[in-house]
């Protein structure tokens, strides 16, 4: 792998992980009776941007230009081809939910700001969506570790 692609892969991982855990922070903050809207606004914005970078310019580029040609054949020829056919296939498709869920959560927070406290049901719904981003995101991180581990064995 070229140094350029290695950097893209590192950016993909870092921005993805940071984005997911920022939404974990959003979920926990929204569950508070008096959440900090400064934290909510910045966590949701940076989390969304992190997921966008992980999706498009880093992960997408790496996946389309390198994974299919170099990594997929290694995994398919190994002892555990299901790591590609089940884990990678699931990871690359379920990931597509996350940027849209993140954008929606960010909109709910930025458009309501402090008045979200007066809308407890909407606040709770936003917390559940953020929690789903975190749970799906952690599953995707674990899938990524499994895929990388299988390819480098």
């Amino acid at each position, binding site marked *: 792998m070229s140094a350029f692609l290695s950097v893209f892969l590192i950016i993909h991982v870092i921005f993805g992980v940071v984005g997911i855990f920022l939404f974990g922070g959003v979920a926990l903050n929204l569950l508070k009776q008096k959440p900090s809207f400064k934290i909510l606004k910045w966590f949701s914005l940076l989390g969304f941007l992190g997921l966008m970078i992980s999706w498009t310019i880093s992960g*997408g580029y790496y996946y389309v230009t390198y994974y299919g040609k170099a990594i997929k054949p290694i995994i398919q020829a190994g002892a555990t081809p299901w790591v590609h056919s089940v884990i990678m296939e699931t990871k690359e498709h379920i990931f597509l939910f996350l940027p849209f869920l993140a954008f929606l959560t960010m909109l709910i927070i930025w458009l309501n700001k402090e008045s979200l406290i007066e809308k407890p049901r909407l606040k709770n719904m936003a917390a559940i969506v953020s929690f789903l981003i975190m749970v799906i995101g952690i599953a995707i991180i674990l899938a990524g570790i499994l895929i990388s581990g299988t390819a480098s064995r």
Partner: protein
Amino acid sequence: MLDFEINSSEFISGETISSKSEGLRIENMENDNTKLKIIYAATLGTIAVVVFIVAITIGADLYLPLKDWLKNVFSHHWVGKSVLSAIIFGVIAFLTMIFSGQASEEKINKALKILIWLVILGSPAIIGFFIWEALLK
């Protein structure tokens, strides 16, 4: 006479304040409705995207000409799914902004509930499909 003048001026300024605050109240309500409408539009857009991703993921693997079409048009099937998802989100959100009437918190909460269930059911549907395709088919 002096009393009357004072009362009259209080009345006039009171009326002005009241109509100003009424104007502000209506403006705030309109602002709030626009904000709720944007959130409602984004929620419906996200619902459409989640349904689309589940459908195209399973559909393109079951019907290979669809996967080939995605590859031919977008260079890679995954790029096609990504681009089409973004387009669907934009179109549905835009149409909702234009054609939906008043948005309310209740409407948004209902739509969010549907979205949450679709994500909860859609994720195992995708992994279940790939398990079936790779190991059980």
